[in-house]
């Protein structure tokens, strides 16, 4: 009679290393994956991790951005940022306005258009392409186009005034007035951005099983009810993910603002990133600029934390 014996599982390190099966398993499950990921990891360490740590260190110094004359100043830069620099609060406020704008206007536009386009059976690709084109334009191109369009002397407003025989009615300097500069830039950035959001929502809507709509129809749901009870829950993970991304991007807003007004007039469109750039590259206060960069990262981390918490609580994100 054959006796079945179970092979003893290696427990100590020595036993494990001398066990052929364990060695193969370890190689397959641990070593090989690390070998595959190592090129990316090494690049990440050098391109992201080390500069990030350096950035944090530089934020504790008075580095000018030139040479290596660096003096450790502790938390002085942060103290100046939160307690002495009046413009920081204003810039932060502008970032919040920017975020509020981008968490509403492009989302409403994109949802509405995606819902409309989802119904289009013929020529849908053409509409999608047309609406997506602004997204692929470089920010320099977009801002140049809009700078010209909004120019109060030569833009569309001036042309309308000329056509209607009016004087300075439509030819308004939207980018030259403190009360309208920031929102005008947000409008231009949104013109470029919302098509991207619309395509994402449309793709998410098209992945919703049609049977759900059929069931809703059988239950007597109208279009609005279908949208509210089938479409919105169906695209919720994409929407919430984009909410998180847009909230983070709002703290990184830079190119459109810098290209259109450089934060002016009179700081009306200043945000943290434009301030950071000016401190680091115009005023030779790279250490202070680094502190602003760290603060932006902390805000972004805070937003991510909110979403991670929600996910842990069972939200479908």
């Amino acid at each position: 009679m054959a006796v079945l014996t179970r092979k003893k599982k290696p427990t100590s390190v020595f036993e494990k290393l001398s066990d052929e099966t364990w060695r193969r398993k370890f190689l397959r499950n641990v070593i090989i994956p690390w070998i595959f990921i190592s090129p990316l990891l090494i690049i990440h360490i050098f391109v992201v991790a080390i500069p990030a740590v350096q950035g944090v260190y530089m934020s504790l110094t008075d580095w000018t951005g030139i040479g290596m004359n660096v003096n450790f100043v502790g938390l002085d830069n942060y103290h100046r940022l939160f307690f002495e620099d009046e413009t920081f609060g204003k810039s932060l406020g502008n970032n919040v306005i920017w975020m509020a704008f981008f968490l509403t206007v492009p989302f409403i536009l994109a949802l509405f258009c995606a819902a409309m386009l989802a119904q289009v059976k013929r020529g849908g690709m053409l509409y999608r392409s047309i609406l997506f084109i602004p997204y692929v334009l470089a920010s320099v191109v977009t801002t140049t186009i809009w700078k010209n369009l909004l120019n109060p002397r030569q833009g569309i407003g001036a042309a309308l005034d000329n056509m209607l025989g009016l004087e300075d009615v439509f030819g308004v300097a939207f980018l030259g007035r403190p009360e309208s500069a920031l929102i005008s830039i947000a409008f231009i950035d949104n013109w470029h951005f919302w098509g991207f959001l619309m395509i994402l929502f449309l793709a998410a809507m098209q992945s919703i099983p049609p049977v759900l709509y059929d069931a809703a129809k059988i239950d007597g749901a109208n279009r609005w009810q279908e949208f509210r009870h089938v479409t919105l829950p169906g695209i919720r993970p994409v929407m919430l993910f984009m909410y998180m991304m847009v909230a983070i991007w709002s703290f990184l807003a830079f190119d459109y603002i810098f290209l259109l007004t450089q934060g002016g007039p009179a700081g009306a469109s200043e945000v943290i990133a434009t301030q950071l750039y000016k401190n680091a590259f115009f005023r030779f206060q790279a250490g202070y600029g680094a502190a602003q960069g760290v603060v932006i990262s902390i805000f972004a981390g805070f937003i991510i934390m909110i979403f991670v918490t929600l996910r842990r609580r069972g939200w479908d994100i």
Partner: protein
Amino acid sequence: MKGIKFLFVIAILAMALAPVGAQDVSTVTMWFAEGSTLDCWGPIMLEFNDIDPSVQLEIVPQADTWNVTRTAVAGGGGPDIVRTPGPSYAYELAEAGLIAPMDAFADEMGWGDFFFDWALDLGLVNGQLYSLADELETLLLYYNTDVFEANGWTPPDTMEELNALGEEAAAAGYVVFSHGNASWRGTNEWFVGEYMTQLAGPHKVYQALTGQLPWTDESMVEAVEQLDAHMQAGWYGGGIDLYFTNEGTTRRAMLADGTAAMNIEGSWAIRGLEEYHGESGQGWDWVPVPSHDGTDYFTIGMGNTSSINANSPHPEAAAQFLNWYFSPATQGKMLTSCRKGPAPVAISEDVMGDLDPRVARVYAELSDASANDRYGYTTWTFWSPSGFNYIIEEIERVWVGDITVMDYLEGLDTLMAGELEAGNLPPIPSR
């Protein structure tokens, strides 16, 4: 066999001698912004290569030249000739040990013989010469001669006359000063420095820069208040909001087509004026920016500086190029061919004779003002980067009514006191 040996010896000799030949040529690199300036300057600068085959200049076109240069230089690389946007930038590089002192070359090549005395002083850091200033510039009051003739106006000498003329021009429907800062926000600082110089006087500006007078002095307050009054009256660009949206091209076009009567801008504008007025067919001329008492003060500015990279393998060759480039002959040629603002060197009167008299007069008057204590200070040359950035950014808050002129000057005073104490101001030539 002998043949093979002979060939072998020849090959060895050729290999040994080839590097010697290559080492004989020192290539001096210079990074330069792409564009029309390089198109005109480049061929003239490359004429240097005909003088001595062992020293050759290589111009590398770069976008965003200053940022690229300082990043490369900080990393131990970069071109042999390091160009910066002004003395305050060169000062930072020198403090960081990234550019080399040039005193030995200056003595050996006699730079003191052709540079103005104060000009070499601008490049001193801790008593050593680190940079050579280039592109001498000043601010002028340009005007459209057709508009002036049609209205029977004469160019103003004093601020009082300018105020009267401005009111008349505005009433006649002209934009008083064709201006706007949409293309270059730094435009703001031209006026702050200019009004301070013309109304408070260059001596007071000097005293304030050297910490002997507060920036809140009554004369400074009056100067900035006068600028604010002009701005509030809509004299600049046709209104404050239009000033913030007018591009550089609009600025040129408005003066050239007679929409605007005048323009306060630097001597660098002449090339653009020639182009735009050439197209419109209307004339232009200039006078010194009016002062409080009619004295012709000229603020002095430098468009950029040149230094030798501390890590350059050929500092002597680089100095040789700088010696040729800054010579009055080369500067004169670049002035006549490209309207380049010359370096602060003594250019012969023969060269000036070939120029448009309006252009020649700029440099003759500037030279006269220099010699007779009538020179003032442009903010981008004599203020620290923090100082002139404050001037640029915060003056807009005065114009839109966020802060008062006194608030503005108090902020400037606090900042400049700190900069002076920290030794961050570029050298101010004593007067």
